[in-house]
């Protein structure tokens, strides 16, 4: 393996390590559940992304073929991370906040956690 490949792999691994650490540190430092949600959804994306880039470079340098698995892993991560975050946020709101804690929805209905959608109400 050439020196440049090794250098690139090392850089991506270090970058991913730093971001993974910052994401975990954020979980400890921030106090509010909703604030804590920000740390893993973002800081960790680049952390995992760095490892995947390092893995792609490694296998390209070793075998000469581009590996698609890493691309798929990042696509799946990007698709699933927001959904998990959304579920956690919704659960937190439903358990800990009252309707009056949230700002007005500025729409014809209230927030979906407290209000039913218009088509499911009787009379429609």
């Amino acid at each position, binding site marked *: 393996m050439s020196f440049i490949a090794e250098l690139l792999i090392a850089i991506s691994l270090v970058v991913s390590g730093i*971001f993974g650490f910052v994401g975990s*540190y954020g979980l400890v430092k921030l106090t509010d559940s909703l604030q804590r949600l920000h740390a893993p959804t973002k800081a960790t994306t680049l952390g995992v992304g760095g490892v995947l880039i390092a893995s792609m470079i490694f296998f390209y340098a070793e075998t000469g073929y581009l590996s698609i698995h890493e*691309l798929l892993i990042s696509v799946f991560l990007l698709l699933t991370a*927001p959904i998990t975050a959304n579920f956690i946020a919704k659960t937190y709101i439903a358990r800990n906040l009252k309707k009056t804690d949230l700002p007005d929805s*500025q729409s014809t209905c209230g927030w*979906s956690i407290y209000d039913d959608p218009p088509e499911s109400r009787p009379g429609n």
Partner: protein
Amino acid sequence: MLTRLIPHPLLSLTLVFVWLGLVNTFTLGNLLLGGFLAIVIPMLTAPYWPNRPKIGKPLKGLEYVLIVLWDIVVANVQVAAIILFKRQKNIRSQWVVMPLELHSAEAITVLAGTITMTPGTVSATLAADGGSILVHCLHTDDTDAVRDEIKTRYERRLKEIFE
């Protein structure tokens, strides 16, 4: 007939590519098996996804993906900076309410995902009629600026792509 056989052509195409990516080698057998999955899975899931999303401008979609990928990198650095260098009592988290101009469920889903992945914001919930979205902002002094940036940067582009 064709719409019953292939209710979501784009989903079928994606499934073929995902299958080929998962096995990581391109052979005729894998392509045929991928094609089989690409027909069977959309047929089985069609009842849960009755409408076909219209994608007006696929090239704009590519531009959108690149912009979001870049923003994710920026978001990581910004959030890392807030976590490392801001004192806990100086972090001002706020709710941002954003009225939506998008109507298609797919477009709103993409927007909500984008908001979560990009600088300091997490989408929390929708209004019951889908008319506005509630966004939690990790640190901001100006909620209107955050709302306007999401509107011009992401929602306008999604409106062009999906409508």
